[in-house]
């Protein structure tokens, strides 16, 4: 099965304006089409990531964007996988192309996010694990991030200085990204003054919730080969949307308990490790091949977890890798050259797509002042609530 090609990438800048998410998505879609030199009429399939906080149009994001761009009979899909929604949408578009059902597909994700903590939608739902964890335990997303962060401190000796160093690095990276919401350099003193939200994490350790949109134009290798702009083409070498293997003994949102390891063998690798592993297997590549990575820094500490999950270093070695400068722009394998969620905040269905927009920009060599020199292979990774893996490997 030949690899699909990214012909166009576009975004609506991240921010907090409270406008209709559809507007953001249309801007990003048109930007991606313009980048590809194509029109909406060239699109044979539209795959979108849903948003659950914007009424019915957000549940049927594919048809919502198709209607706003202008009904033309296009087949659509509207997928949800929490923070992994964008990866599932990219995967849906790729499958349609590889199944021979279209030459060109458009992928769109857009969101308008509420302020503050994400909470469940209204209602009383004792059968909904997402409702239970909020009502019974007050276990917000930052609560889980803090449990993971504290675990690094207890198990590997991480310090809050390490977490601050992630923030300092990403805030510097994002300075040069015109689509970033926050373009401001943070220093250790300012971080130390940030209020603690969920100990050991401070407000600046935790990503905000944002408005934003991202879009990609994908095409079959055969279609792409006929175009004149082949030097800008980026190939999708792998998409991993794996779920966990039982028993999943690492606490994942929104569960209030892990699986029990009684009565079943532990899987060969943890869920987070398995997300990247499946992508490496599909791409025939390994961690040593990476020029850069975009990882989901919902919290500063979580970025360190991902270093290990994607194989940049061994378990417990992420702090040392960070301190070595390897993951800073100019280092061996810059992580979050875009500035990451630290500079963007979360716009749930757009986020995994935005990661691939950054990979595309970097692999084309069009990233300007934040360019990773000689970028050849990029990996993006995240994880959605309820067991959704999301990893894309792109090459040029």
């Amino acid at each position, binding site marked *: 099965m030949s690899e699909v090609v990214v012909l166009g990438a576009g975004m609506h800048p991240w921010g907090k304006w409270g406008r209709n998410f559809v507007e953001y998505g249309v801007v990003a879609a048109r930007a991606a089409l313009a980048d590809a030199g194509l029109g909406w009429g060239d699109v044979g399939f539209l795959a979108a990531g849903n948003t659950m906080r914007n009424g019915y149009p957000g549940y049927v994001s594919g048809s919502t964007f198709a209607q706003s761009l202008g009904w033309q009979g296009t087949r659509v899909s509207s997928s949800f996988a929490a923070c992994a929604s964008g990866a599932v949408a990219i995967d849906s578009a790729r499958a349609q192309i590889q199944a021979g059902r279209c030459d060109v597909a458009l992928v769109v994700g857009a969101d308008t996010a509420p302020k503050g903590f994400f909470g469940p939608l209204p209602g009383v739902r004792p059968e909904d694990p997402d409702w239970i964890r*909020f*009502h*019974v335990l007050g*276990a*917000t997303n930052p609560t889980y991030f803090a*449990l993971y962060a504290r675990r690094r401190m207890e198990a590997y000796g991480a310090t809050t200085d390490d977490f601050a160093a992630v923030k300092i690095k990403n805030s510097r990276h994002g300075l040069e990204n015109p689509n970033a919401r926050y373009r401001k350099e943070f220093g250790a003193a300012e971080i130390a003054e940030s209020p603690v939200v969920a*100990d050991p994490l401070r407000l600046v350790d935790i990503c905000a919730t944002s408005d934003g949109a991202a879009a990609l134009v994908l095409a079959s290798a055969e279609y792409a080969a006929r175009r004149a702009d082949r030097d800008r083409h980026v190939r999708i070498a792998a998409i991993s949307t794996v779920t966990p293997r*039982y028993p999943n003994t690492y*606490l994942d949102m929104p569960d209030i308990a892990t699986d029990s390891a009684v009565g079943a063998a532990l899987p060969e690798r943890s869920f987070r490790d398995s997300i990247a592993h499946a992508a490496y297997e599909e791409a025939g590549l390994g961690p040593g091949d990476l020029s850069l990575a975009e990882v989901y820094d919902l919290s500063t500490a979580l970025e360190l977890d991902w270093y290990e999950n994607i194989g940049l270093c061994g378990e417990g070695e992420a702090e040392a890798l960070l301190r070595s400068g390897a993951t800073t722009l100019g280092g061996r394998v810059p992580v979050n050259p875009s500035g990451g969620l630290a500079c963007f905040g979360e716009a749930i269905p757009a986020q995994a797509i935005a990661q691939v927009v950054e990979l595309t920009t970097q692999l084309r060599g069009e990233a300007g002042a934040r360019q990773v020199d000689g970028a050849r292979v990029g990996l993006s990774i995240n994880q959605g609530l309820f067991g959704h893996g999301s990893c894309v490997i792109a090459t040029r």
Partner: protein
Amino acid sequence: MKPRRPVVEGYFEERADGSAVLVGGRCDACGAYFFPKRFSFCRNPGCGAPDLADVELSTRGTLWSFTDNRYAPPPPYPAAEPFEPYGVAAVALEAEQMVVLGQLARGTDVAALHAGQAMELCAEDLYETDDAVVRVWKWRIA
């Protein structure tokens, strides 16, 4: 005095001696535990047995991780006014080979906690309604 009721039916029980115990499901076929029970069937893909027995989980375990929440969560968390910070602990149960979350008992000194220390289950008030005092399980230092 208002009657007590659990914040959610079937997740835990309080005993006459003041102790509390979580109630989960256990598969007789493969031995797996589930908390909460949620469904009648076993979710071990190698098993899939149709029935789970109700089972009391271990009331003691070791601390896996913990945090202290300083900001009020959104609804449906029944935040007190003024907001009262609360700790959350993840505790590993040895027999069940699983980790279970709970709030930390009021007054726990989070700064003094460390992974691996012994914890035990208890119950405390979570909030009051017009009709009842609503109770929840919590973890405290054993």
